[in-house]
């Protein structure tokens, strides 16, 4: 065992910098295998001439499964991002004190030196709009906005004193998923697939599903690979048309014809290889064959109609319509097939109170209603299949909402709403190595600041990587002269939540 660890360490050290790697492995196949972090450059070079005839199963595949730095608790992640940011004060962070201040002017000391996205002047306080009660053995507070989730709280760890640095959507989403508020860094899912590869090489290792009628504000960058090779970027499976772009054969070309064309391409490429001996050709042959398998496996994985009716019912899925609930069920199907990182985005949680859809008392209830049953069903479904033990589910927004009612441009708004808030919000995690039925962190009486066990976005990221078996300070990639990592120069593992 020690010997193995030493070997891994040595390999990791060898691969410590991409530059070192590029230096020894250079372009071509090397560029392909850039990310095989623990594969070891020497290993790769030694094996290359033999490895090339083994089709898609070669060890120098950048997405081949790899071991993490130490024994992981979680093998895969489903990250549910409620884009726009749900109000923690309506859902989880019960603040009876806040109700007493409802309608009163916000005290000046809460406003001094603060900047908000839209609140101007002196806003009024807004009491919690949900009816709260404690649930389960663990006695977790969940409001009547989420009746189904109430039934699974004993599988969940709540982080109630989360905080972030950014109060606008796009930068805050970037910070949450890439560790930096600026564009250009790899996303968490890219880091994870870079580190761990995928367990099913007929499917992309990192899949993104979006619902809510709009992409998240920060766009594709939150599942981009940044400076990591593009093989690690999230592949967005679409809910209409081809799940993966161009996965369908052209109209009038059936699978058998496609098979024959790919065979012809492979044969001719093989002949070309015999002539010019460029190993890149063999990679290309393998990639065409993989593409052919993906044409089959992706639609199969995405075909929800293969699920029995009782499963569809438990999630509340209409199989003919794209929806968040459908994406939850797809997420289960995907992790079941070995996809490493599934990221769900649901747009429409930005409740400022400027319209009915964006109102705490109307729009937020609708969003909860549309998602609650499916999220609870997902946890139950993963559990009954034994997947919850090594699948980590994370749920949250990019920031929190203010205890004050928004008064955009100093005006009274037609509906109840809360502005963006960076000092306090709730994220929850379940499965894959976190405690069950646990709550961590507290905010003050009105839910304005975290007062105990605060968790920064980088701490959450460090913890997720830890659960996957990585030291977040060591999962690095050399770029522009220095090693970069998901947690930038920060991040502490939240040890008390580990099971």
């Amino acid at each position: 065992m020690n010997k193995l660890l030493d070997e891994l360490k040595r390999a990791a050290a060898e691969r410590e910098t991409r530059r070192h790697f590029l230096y020894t492995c250079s372009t071509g196949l090397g560029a392909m295998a850039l990310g095989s972090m623990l594969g070891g450059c020497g290993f790769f070079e030694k094996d290359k001439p033999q490895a090339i005839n083994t089709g898609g199963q070669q060890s120098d595949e950048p997405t081949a499964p790899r071991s993490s730095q130490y024994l992981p608790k979680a093998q895969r992640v489903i990250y549910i991002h409620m884009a726009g940011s749900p109000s923690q004060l309506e859902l989880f962070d019960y603040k009876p004190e806040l109700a007493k201040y409802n309608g009163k002017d916000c005290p000046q000391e809460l406003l001094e030196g603060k900047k908000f996205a839209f609140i101007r002047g002196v806003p009024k306080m807004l009491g919690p709009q949900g009816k709260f009660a404690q649930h389960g053995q663990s006695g977790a507070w969940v409001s009547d906005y989420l009746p189904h989730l109430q039934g699974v709280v004993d599988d969940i760890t709540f982080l109630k004193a989360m905080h972030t640095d950014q109060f606008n959507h796009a930068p805050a989403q970037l910070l949450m998923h890439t560790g930096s508020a600026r564009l250009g860094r790899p996303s968490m899912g890219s880091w994870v697939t870079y580190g761990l590869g995928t367990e099913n090489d007929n499917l992309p290792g990192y899949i993104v599903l979006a619902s809510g009628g709009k992409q998240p504000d920060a766009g594709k960058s939150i599942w981009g690979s940044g400076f990591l090779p593009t093989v690690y970027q999230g592949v967005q499976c679409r809910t209409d048309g081809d799940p993966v772009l161009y996965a369908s054969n052209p109209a009038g070309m059936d699978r058998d014809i496609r098979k024959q064309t790919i065979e012809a391409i492979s044969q001719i490429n093989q002949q070309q290889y015999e002539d010019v001996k460029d190993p890149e050709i063999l990679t290309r042959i393998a990639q065409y064959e993989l593409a052919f398998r993906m044409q089959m496996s992706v639609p199969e994985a995405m075909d929800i109609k293969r699920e029995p009716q009782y499963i569809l019912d438990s999630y509340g899925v209409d199989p003919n319509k794209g929806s968040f609930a459908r994406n939850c069920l797809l997420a289960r199907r995907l992790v079941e097939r070995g996809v490493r990182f599934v990221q769900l985005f649901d747009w429409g949680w930005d409740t400022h109170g400027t319209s009915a859809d964006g109102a705490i008392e109307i729009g937020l209830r609708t969003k909860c209603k549309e998602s609650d049953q499916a999220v609870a069903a997902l946890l139950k479904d993963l559990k009954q299949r034994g997947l919850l033990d090594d699948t980590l589910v994370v749920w949250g927004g990019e920031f929190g909402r203010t205890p004050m009612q928004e008064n955009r441009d100093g005006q009274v708004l037609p509906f109840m709403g809360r502005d963006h808030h960076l000092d306090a919000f709730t994220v929850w995690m379940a499965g894959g190595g976190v405690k069950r039925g646990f709550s961590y962190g507290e905010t003050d009486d009105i839910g304005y600041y975290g007062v105990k066990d605060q968790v920064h976005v980088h701490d959450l990221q460090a913890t997720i990587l830890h659960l996957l078996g990585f030291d977040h300070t060591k999962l690095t990639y050399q770029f522009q002269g220095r090693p970069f990592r998901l947690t930038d120069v920060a991040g502490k593992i939240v040890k008390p939540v580990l099971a």
Partner: protein
Amino acid sequence: MKYQWLILGAISIAVVTMLSAFFGIFEKRVDYNTQIKPLLNKNCIACHGGVKKAAGFSLLFRHEAVAPTKSGKPAIIPGDADGSEMIRRLTLTDPEERMPLEHPPLKPDEIETLRNWIDQGADWGDHWAYQTVEKPDVPKVGTFWSRLGIVENDEINWAKNEIDHFILDKLKAEGLKPSSETDRATLIRRVSLDLIGLPPTEKEVSDFVQDKSPDAYEKVVDRLLQSPAYGERWAGMWLDLARYADTKGYERDGGRKIWRYRDWLIKAFNEDKPFDQFTIEQLAGDLMPNPTDAQLIATGFHRNTMTNDEGGTQDEEFRVAAVLDRVNTTWDVWQGTTFSCVQCHSHPYDPFVNEEYYQYLAFFNNSRDEDVTSDTPTLRFYKSADSLKTLNLRSFILSHASNPKEARLQADYFTRLARTVEPKINSHDFDQLVNASLLDAKYFGFQDKGSARIKNVTLTNRPRLLIAWGTKADDAVVTIRQDRLSGPVLATIPVPKTGSAWSDSIQMIPLPAIQGKHDLHISLSSPKMPKEWVMIKWVSCVPKMAGQPENAIGEQEKILVDVLNADAEQTPIMMDGSGDLVRETRVFDRGNWLVKGKRVTPDVPKSFPAMNAQLPKNRLGLAQWMVSREHPLTARVAVNRFWEQLFGAGIVETVEDMGTQGIPPTHRELLDYLAVEFMETDQWRIKKLLKKMVMSATYRQRSQVSPEVLAKDPFNKLLARGPRVRLSAEAVRDQALAVSGLLSHKMYGPSVMPVQPEGIWQSPYDGDSWKQSTGEDLHRRALYTYWKRTAPYPSMVTFDSPSREFCQLRRLRTNTPLQALVTLNDPVYMEAAQQLAVYMQQEMTPEKQIRAAFRRVTLQEITPRKLAVLAQLYRNTEQHYRQKPEEMKQLMACMDPTPQLAALTVTANTILNLDEVITKE
């Protein structure tokens, strides 16, 4: 293993000691750059360098390294290794004290090298790439007699120019031999794809194959360098560096019209604008004397930074982000140096200190763009009638000014005002807001009884206020007072009713003659509709136009205002502020823009030759400094980039980093030779540089490789064979369109929207949508495709294009299944296959048809084995479609389908996917 090291180490120490004892005086001097710096970088500098200075000891600069550390004693005493704490700590056995901490000890020979170096005086050396380039001697090839031409020699026969001498020299040292010239069809395809991004036609190939003249190849090269497609191909490369896009980026990612910059690039490459001029115009065209429109458009290079229109975001934060990006991009593109590290701390490895970052930033910090939604400053292109008005205004001023000097100054001032609507104060700078707000955090708005202050405005000789504003309210009136909210009234003006606060109208208001700088206080009275906003986008105090009355707006001034309000196409440009609008630059503490430190003025890092005192301390001076003969990096970086484009890897493989952490050059002398030639002999002409490269025997080699050579040089660093790399995203598409006959050669103009799958674009804010182009615009070259940063054209991204949010210096080539799906199934490639099938039908038999298509696409004759594979595929497919006419009709969509044509389409689709097709061989 360990014992071996120990024994080896012991022996080497013994040998070194003996040698130094016997030959002390002849002892070889240790070279800092090649022997010491790598050791320090690897083992020491992470803790004792630009970021951390553990125990007060840093190895970044010599003066730091020999200075007293926290202990009070220097760790390095030049000339006394034994007395140097550094050597002592390296050789201890106690793991608590021995350096490097928690890492394996240095090897004995490494320690010995360090010891010798200190004993010899611990001299520092500059990193090779930071020293002014000197022209190295060209290595000789062949034997003495063969050089005289008396005997035949392989090397002499092989080598075509100096490049080959350098390459041969290295090959010989490594025991390798170069490859022979590749066949002519492969060669012309290679050089065409490289120089113009398109394959040659069959006729061009056969002409070349049959041309027996000695300069047949050179004629092809010259023709390609003259082709208009040349500019398109190289502009395509530069667009990644310029982070060019047709949208602004960030959350809203609205549209931006900056395609004129792209067109400028194409023209600049085509007219072979010397690289020094090319550099100066892009970085500082606006600061050149009497800049032309083209020079202003060129500054679009640095206006390709992103603008954040998301509601609630602070303009200043993203203005600063854009300026930082300009600094980093300038270093990345022209200096091949990772300067961005220095934003937060001194460079961890290279000799730059934190403050130097901000001195450099000061060159860029004075530009007038401030992250406003309108993307100003812009250069405006008026319709001809309005354009004529500006010309008339100019001549009016010239004939009415009091003296010629004044005439010239005023004419330039107002022409510039009309063309750029600058200078102006953006309303996000207003303060002391009462009953007012920055609406959507963008522009100032106020309601009835609202007020605000415009700070410190120079009014001397500026008795006109230009203001861009609007409202929905009736009878809203604004009063402007001097110095205080209750101060003397300067003007009272009704606000134009524009239908919405967000739509503005530009007005000119006469002010009394006032001297000096004053605060202006504006207050609003809007009793009829007190809740309706009045929005002001910007204000500007300007001089009175010559020949116009003192106290009222004159006729010519009204014409100017009409022009300012006229519809005009705009392209973002750089423009510096002067007078009140000059910005001071301060160091950001640990890179945080909110925490300002010491004030700095523009300057270049000390590790480089100083700026000539004659040069202005602005972007223009900076650009001129960068292209001076003494500058060590600009030419090397440029040469390396062009080399990488042709050979697949740079001479310094890390095109983005020539610093001490970059990969050392494979052929440093060649790089320096080419850099000096580029600057001196070629006078920075890129076409001459490229011609030199493609004329070399090195470039013309066969790309086939033997297992022996592959084992010895798997990544072709030594160039014993020709380059063989996958085509770029642009070339993959352009080639498919070209060989199928679909490609449009139309140049320039707004970006186009070819066929794209549904659902890629989401633009909830400005309602932009992908409106599929029509006619030939469907089949334009890839560089004209509309580039939306948050949703770039999918097949381009699949083939490794960056998103263009930031400058990307090098596309790492990947080889993925998603690429296969694009060329197999993307409708663009199917359309190409259908067209190719129609072409194939001209031949009579399937074999002849396949031969013809294969020749057309690969420009090679098909081998019998490959023909057999494709013929079999054709037969199976034809039979299939004979039995399934419905599928046949679907496949051929709008064509008259036959089983033969359907089978040919499938065959063509197969050919277009062959490795040899998407690879430059």
